[in-house]
């Protein structure tokens, strides 16, 4: 793959689109030379971001708008921007769950954003009039053995 490389796609706002999105993301991450576990983290982060769009931003919308994605690979960064056309959410107000208490308290949901934040090196969210944009970045030079969590997240 020649870098920088950019892939743009627009998929229907439907859970059945998620497999296609994951397939493209993992293929590009493999080409970028990322380790298997790092590819898995990007894959689930993007899936969770898209699932949140479907379950929250697009809740009650019929037909649901599409989800647009821009994947960009440079020599040192793998980034995915997820663009939705629905309701925005309070990104800064989200309280991270603590584990394993979250599970023992009987919760089975609500960990998508936690996963996104812990699987990526940086996560930003921008509300817009016509679109909301979540930008996920993974450093290609990041140490894959670094423990998750505790990272400084840009506002």
């Amino acid at each position: 793959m020649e870098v920088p490389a950019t892939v743009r796609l627009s998929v229907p706002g439907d859970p059945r689109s998620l497999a296609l999105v994951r397939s493209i993301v993992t293929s590009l991450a493999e080409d970028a030379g990322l380790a298997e576990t790092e590819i898995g983290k990007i894959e689930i982060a993007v899936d969770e971001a898209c699932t949140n769009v479907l379950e929250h931003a697009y809740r009650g919308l019929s037909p649901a708008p599409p989800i647009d994605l821009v994947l960009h690979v440079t020599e040192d960064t793998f980034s995915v921007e997820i663009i939705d056309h629905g309701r925005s959410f309070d990104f800064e107000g989200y309280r991270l769950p603590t584990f394993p208490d979250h599970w023992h308290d009987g919760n089975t949901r609500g960990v998508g954003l936690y996963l996104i934040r812990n699987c990526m090196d940086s996560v930003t969210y921008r509300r817009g009039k016509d679109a909301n944009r979540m930008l996920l970045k993974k450093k290609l030079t990041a140490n894959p053995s670094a423990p998750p969590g505790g990272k400084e997240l840009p506002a």
Partner: protein
Amino acid sequence: MNTRELDIRVSRKGDLTIVAPRGEIDAASLEAFRRTVEPLCSQPVPRLIIDCRNVRFINSTAFGLLFHFHSQCVGRGGFFALQNVSKKIASIINILGLQNVLLVNPDKDGINAAVQ
């Protein structure tokens, strides 16, 4: 549209029930997975192994569901384990703090200990 069906095989080995999904467990396939596994967890003493050798992806809601199934089985005096979990999926289990809650990739001794 690229959709990948989730195929789920259920078999018995002694008093163990082996559930072997093939595919990806995500927002599109989660309900099929729930519909298959939930009744198995309602047996008098459920002893379930989820064989993950052909599972390529599990989303966060499905991990929550696995914890729920685990609680159901253990609460009924049974047993619930994930077998043949890939390195990629295991790393997500660790991030979610489930590595010390779910029984993941137990050996025979681990299964025997859990069953007793």
